[in-house]
């Protein structure tokens, strides 16, 4: 061992004690209680990940990356315990709401649990258990027909960080997400800014603009697979007649990415338009009228009043489009390019599929799932923070 596990737990406990002790004192509560809880939180948080791992990241033969990941895991475990503790003892008592009067509740202690039983059972079996098992698998080497599943500590993760193919899929995923968001939202805003106004046949127009939401990612991929087909596709028919060029849509890496992006923009356009229309209808007209009296031009009114007023909707759409590009896009990629050419359209989820099921590197794919989960947490945290902010502004 590079460091004694007991020492690690001790340091973490001391840090936790200091943190909660000071926080308690500032909030006017007994610092000793805070220090005691903090020591429990810090020590417990360390053990949360390190006990299952048996402190393997601090063994003598490990690399710097291992130690770094180990420290990161300890920090994450501590935060997982200390932040809720702080919330429960310090933040919550301060913003004590009026106690909710439970009016009209039914009696019986067993009934609520019976009502919740089906939901909780399914969530535990098919979400929580696989979730925890993904973490366990990511520290092993698991192969389809191999009996032995040796423990390899953080090797799958350090392997990923040094795998150029993996890092390329990270980049591919970000590029495709960004392209889908920018092109998709601009187009949707443009169309919605005309479609939201009261006009004859507005209902019919709206329906004809938004139905593509219900098309599946796989079908969108199949239709665009035919449209961009090099032999019979009409994309090349048009480019040939207009510019005299035939494009190799599925053998050129950047063109393949473009084809996937176009198919996805088409498929998600309906959803984006639907929400922009709803958002635009909620922008109060008097603001625009006031600006118009002050001499603002139409374009100015649009960019300086309408677009900022739409920012909550835009934010919501950015999040849903990121989720779409990260996960749902699988169907489009699988039917259109199968991740190719030479991995150009292999996003993170497609790589998990290829590594886990194509190559049988199950634990390597599990480690990728853990990293993808961390990204999901990041997106969700962002979502919660802005929701909270909007609520305070709105009220």
């Amino acid at each position, binding site marked *: 061992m590079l460091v004694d596990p007991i020492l690690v737990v001790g340091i973490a406990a001391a840090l936790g004690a200091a943190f909660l002790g000071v926080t308690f004192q500032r909030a006017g509560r007994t610092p000793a209680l805070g220090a005691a809880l903090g020591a429990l939180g810090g020590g417990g948080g360390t053990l949360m990940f390190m006990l299952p791992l048996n402190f393997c990241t601090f063994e003598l033969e490990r690399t710097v990356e291992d130690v770094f990941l180990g420290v990161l895991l300890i920090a994450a475990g501590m935060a997982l315990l200390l932040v809720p503790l702080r919330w429960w003892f310090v933040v919550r008592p301060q913003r004590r709401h009026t106690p909710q009067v439970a009016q*009209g*509740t*039914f009696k019986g*202690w067993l009934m609520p649990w019976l*009502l*919740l039983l*089906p*939901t*909780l*059972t*399914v*969530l535990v079996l*098919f*979400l929580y*258990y*696989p*979730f925890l*098992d*993904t973490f366990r*698998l990511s520290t092993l080497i698991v192969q389809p027909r191999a009996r032995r599943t040796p423990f390899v500590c953080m090797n799958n993760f350090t392997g990923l960080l040094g795998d150029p193919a993996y890092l390329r899929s990270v980049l591919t995923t970000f590029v495709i997400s960004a392209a889908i968001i920018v092109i998709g939202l601009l187009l949707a805003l443009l*169309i919605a*800014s005309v479609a939201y*106004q009261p*006009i*004859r046949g507005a209902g019919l*127009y709206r329906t*004809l*603009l*938004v*139905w*593509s*939401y*219900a*098309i*599946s990612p*796989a*079908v*969108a991929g*199949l*239709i665009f697979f*035919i449209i961009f087909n090099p032999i*019979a596709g009409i994309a090349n028919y048009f480019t040939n007649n207009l510019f005299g060029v035939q494009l190799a849509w599925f053998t050129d890496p950047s063109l393949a990415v473009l084809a996937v992006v176009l198919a996805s923009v*088409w498929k998600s356009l309906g959803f984006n338009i*639907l929400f922009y229309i709803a958002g635009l209808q909620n922008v109060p007209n008097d603001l625009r*009228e006031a600006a118009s009296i002050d001499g603002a031009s*139409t374009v100015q*009114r*649009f960019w300086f009043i309408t677009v900022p007023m739409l920012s909550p909707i835009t934010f919501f759409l950015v999040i849903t489009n990121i989720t779409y590009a990260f996960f749902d896009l*699988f*169907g489009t990629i*699988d039917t259109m390019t199968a991740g190719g050419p030479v991995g150009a359209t292999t996003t993170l*989820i497609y790589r*998990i599929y290829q590594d*886990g*099921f194509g190559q049988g590197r199950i634990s390597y794919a*599990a480690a990728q*799932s853990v990293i993808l*989960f961390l990204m*999901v947490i990041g997106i*969700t945290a962002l979502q919660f923070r802005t929701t909270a902010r909007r609520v305070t502004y709105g009220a």
Partner: protein
Amino acid sequence: MSSESLYKDLTLSVPETTFSTNRRWLPKRFGAHLFLIAACFIIGFPLLYAVIVSTQTNADVFAYRFTFGNALADNLNVVMNTRNLGTYMWNTVFTAVAVTVGKTILSLLAGLAFVYFKFPGKWLVFGFVLITLMMPTEILIIALLRFVVIDLGWGSTYQALIVPFIASATGTFLFRQHFANIPSELSEAAQLDGANALQFLWRVLIPISWNTIGALAVIQFVYVWNMYLWPRLVITDSSRQVVQVGLQSLISTDTGITYGPLMLGAVIASIPPVIVFVLLQKQFMSGFAIGRDK
């Protein structure tokens, strides 16, 4: 005309009709109509093209004919008889209906428990349900597949397509929000009449909750209908396969890509979710509005 100048022209016409006089020489809001018709056409084009191809032979496709061909019956025969599109469609219908109904029932029961009962640890349990929003199936796919196929032995079964998806944090949250906005006099009156919680749910809550039920149902139906990754992994027996994955089998024969049947399959697979979505558009939007309005 470049799209930018067209756009400026259109936005110019907006406020004029809202709070000033109209232009004289064109029909009312001619530019906006023109723009919207063009937008509808561009959005509709890929599907229109798919419909046209689905009536054509390969020869028509190679000749770039943009009119309906007369091979629709032949193509239909290929997808239904030579291939198993009918089976795939039935499997998808069954799965989508089962998940939608199951999810609605489980979410209604959970919502009832969270709003109309007091029990210790309620907030903890609610948090436990809500946190699953951060666990999309896609990131659990490795462990979930091992559990469902190896431990439960559910490979290539309907229950593998249905059971993992019938509990829903979204649905529970949706009904909790909806029930919380219903005046408590209703449940007090029901209790005075001697009704228990389930009778109250069945006789009072459900009849006034159809809009919320519709909202959840349309979101879930379209979601399950379009599911792809999970059935592709867990179903290996083609007689249990769903249509989204089964379409792959229409892609080619030994003589190359069969364009007409493939596009016909894609069109048939898209008709039910598009109809459901178009009919329940309003409910769909309100579902998101309730979900977001914390």
